[in-house]
């Protein structure tokens, strides 16, 4: 998956050994955590556990992919956690209560329609973020901080803070079968994993093989030059925030489906995990650099780390400390790699002339 990068590697094959090791650091980290827990955590490598972990990781991976595109353009999306919560409530509310048309009638949608509407809500909130940032020139941090509160507020308002329980649906309204997304299986793997694979391949394809993908990198690398090259910067930004909203909506639907219930506080602080996964996977917070493959691996490292520590019985307080250290180390190594890479490139330039 890491081959799906748009900023192609520079130093070519003749970089030093150290550089190659540093470039593969996310892989190495992944194997290190897997090897560590395989030895120290009982049952870690059992199929049941691996699948369970993948399901946990998938949720963060969706958000992290959306976040990666946003960060590559030089922005940030803090609202994804709240979008997860709100979209879960939208899905739950539609299945349980439908839409009340006031004068005695209530519309119910089938599960497929419910999912589509929910995804649309996620994209819509993303579009609002995008409009605030492009048309009203609000800084991404502030705009999405605002929608973070607004979306969470609406999620809580939708049920007065209560949970929508027991989303089994009624056969006569064809609202049954919502649980398939969260607990169904295809070819032995959970449905949510399949969705992740599809979305990840699509995102990697967009990054590598489409004009909009290239433009995402260009906008993050040098917005003025992108504008002068005729790139419609506002459109690119709208796209990344809407995609991020879509990813968050998927997570909202999947979580509600897994639990067969929607709780308005779901997704609290998910945005931080998503940012951590993206950064761990080599996405640069200053924009212009990042890969979908790297982000997925980053999400796995974080997910496996926390699940493995739980299995080893490490206190959750220590888990937070360890997670924080891993993120900081990752960024420090990233900086070191970039410096080394520049040195190698300079040497090559000097050798040529």
């Amino acid at each position, binding site marked *: 998956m890491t081959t799906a990068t*748009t900023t192609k590697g520079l130093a070519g094959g003749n970089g030093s050994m150290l550089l190659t090791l540093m470039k593969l650091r996310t892989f190495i980290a992944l194997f290190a955590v897997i090897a560590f827990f395989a030895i120290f955590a009982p049952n870690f490598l059992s199929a049941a556990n691996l699948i369970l972990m993948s399901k946990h990781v998938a949720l963060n991976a969706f958000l992290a992919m959306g976040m990666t595109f946003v960060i590559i353009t030089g922005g940030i999306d803090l609202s994804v956690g709240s979008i997860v919560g709100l979209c879960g409530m939208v899905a739950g509310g539609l299945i349980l209560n439908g839409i009340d048309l006031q004068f005695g009638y209530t519309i119910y949608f089938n599960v497929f329609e419910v999912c589509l509407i929910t995804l649309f809500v996620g994209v819509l909130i993303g579009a609002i973020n995008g409009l605030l940032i492009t048309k009203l020139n609000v800084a991404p941090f502030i705009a999405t901080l605002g929608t973070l509160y607004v979306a969470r507020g609406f999620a809580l308002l939708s049920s007065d803070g209560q949970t929508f329980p027991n989303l089994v649906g009624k056969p006569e309204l064809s609202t049954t079968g919502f649980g398939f997304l969260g607990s169904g299986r295809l070819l032995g793997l959970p449905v949510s994993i399949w969705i992740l694979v599809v979305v990840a391949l699509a995102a990697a394809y967009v990054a590598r*093989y489409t*004009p909009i993908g290239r433009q995402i990198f260009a906008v993050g690398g040098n917005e003025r030059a992108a504008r002068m*090259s005729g790139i419609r910067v506002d459109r690119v930004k709208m796209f990344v925030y809407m995609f991020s909203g879509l990813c968050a909506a998927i997570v909202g639907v999947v979580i509600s489906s897994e639990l067969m219930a929607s709780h308005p506080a779901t997704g609290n602080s998910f945005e931080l995990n998503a940012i951590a996964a993206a950064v761990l996977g080599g996405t640069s917070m200053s924009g*212009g650099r990042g890969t979908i493959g790297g982000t997925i691996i980053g999400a796995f490292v974080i997910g496996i780390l926390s699940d493995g520590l739980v299995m080893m019985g490490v206190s959750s307080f220590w888990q937070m400390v360890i997670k924080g250290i891993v993120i900081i180390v990752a960024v420090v190594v990233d900086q070191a790699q970039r410096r080394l890479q520049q040195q190698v490139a300079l040497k090559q330039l000097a050798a040529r002339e």
Partner: protein
Amino acid sequence: MAGMDEGDVVLRLEDVTKVYSGIVAVKHANLALRRGAVNVLVGENGAGKSTLMRMIAGVERPSLGRILLEGQEVEFNSPADAQKHGIGMVFQELNLFGNLSVAENIFATREIVRGIRGIDHRAQVEKANAFLAKLDAGIDAESMVDDLPIGQQQLVEIAKAISLDTRILILDEPTSALSAAEVDILFKVIGELKAQGVAIVYISHRLEELMRIGDYITVLRDGQITGHAMVCDIDTRWIVRSMIGSDAKDFAKSISHKLGGEVFRAEDICLPRKTGGLAVDHLSISVRAGEVLGIYGLMGAGRSEFFECVMGRHVNSTGRIYIDGEEIGSRDTSTRIKRGLALIPEDRQREGLVQVLSIAANLTLASLERFTRFGFHIRDEREQGAIAQAIRDLAIKAPNPDFDITSMSGGNQQKVVIGKALMTNPKVLLMDEPSRGIDIGAKADVFRTMRRLAGEGLAILFSTSDLEEVMALSDRIAVMSNGKVTRIIDREEASEEIIVKAASVGHRSRETAS
């Protein structure tokens, strides 16, 4: 000459040379600065004036040669070091903190403190106001620098330099943003400083200014001092001759071809300046297919701003633009590119390149749609083909197009920016200072490319502040000054003197313009 050298010399440069990564900016220069006099330095862009001054101000260190201050050899390791020796400099680009007040700027790094009680703001404001009053600028020391118009910011910079109580004061193009009234005040202050025995170094392109204020004049060309005289002994003709020299360099203009019909026309382009007045002032111009129109002008003449208006960069610009006789209504840059306009921006790093992308990705950035299937899938082989062709056509020295763009020299980066623009298949190519900051070999390549493209029927507008360049490359020359075209002449009829004169016309008429 012997009589001249007996002036009261405060600082002397002896056989000074400065080399930057392969380029010699100053060659064996000898210069003497005299106390109580205005020492004028003149030369074309890139002649080495600023480098020379930066060495005196401690920003750069000479590669060879020595600096004598009052007969003693000195070495400046930093601007602060030079300041301690009484040398102050006002740089061409303003070095002010926009988010701080005028007083805070003037006393930056040498704040007036009262021990543990911190900065004495009231004393700073009082002292700053005293300096500003000298400049008669009506600036309040407590106002934010960002809130001042550019001209007043420049005065703040000058006030700051004066407040240093220097014995040598270097002014690098201090009047480029000043109105005529402000210039008069500045000259009055310079006169006072002179009377106090301060040695002033004055750099400017405006010849009439130099004649008015200068005492001694030194002319630089290609890093060498080519003329030295007392201002009272010479005239502007002498300056131009020393600046340009007689040995005109050989440029690519040789193959002539037939010009086509009019391709591009701009009518009545106006762009208001943020600080009042017009940066581009009712400008109209037209270019024919296959024609190279050179736009000559000094810094701040409005050339870049005009190009930016044409590309639709400024929301509040007005005027009309026609391509092939058809008006382009949309203001949007990407529509204008689609209609056949392309710009090579002046500032390559900030507006031309995306540094994190590879050479290849930079080349195709503006024309990705050309390589797609179904409108979204980029076809690798088609893109690679176009990249290989551009590298060949423009003689880009890129061992591997997948390398980072930053791994190339400035000249090759410029060729990539040109290649990117050409991939959009433009009808009109706007080039803003296309030869800026690139080495001689790359320059020749760029000029050859320009002539070749013109031969293929492209209309080219390029701006430059290099006289030789504009004379050698253009079919027609438009001279800009203060946002206006002051003269349009065919190359056959043009002479350096006419151009230099037309380029400084606006300065006098600025009062009426604003």
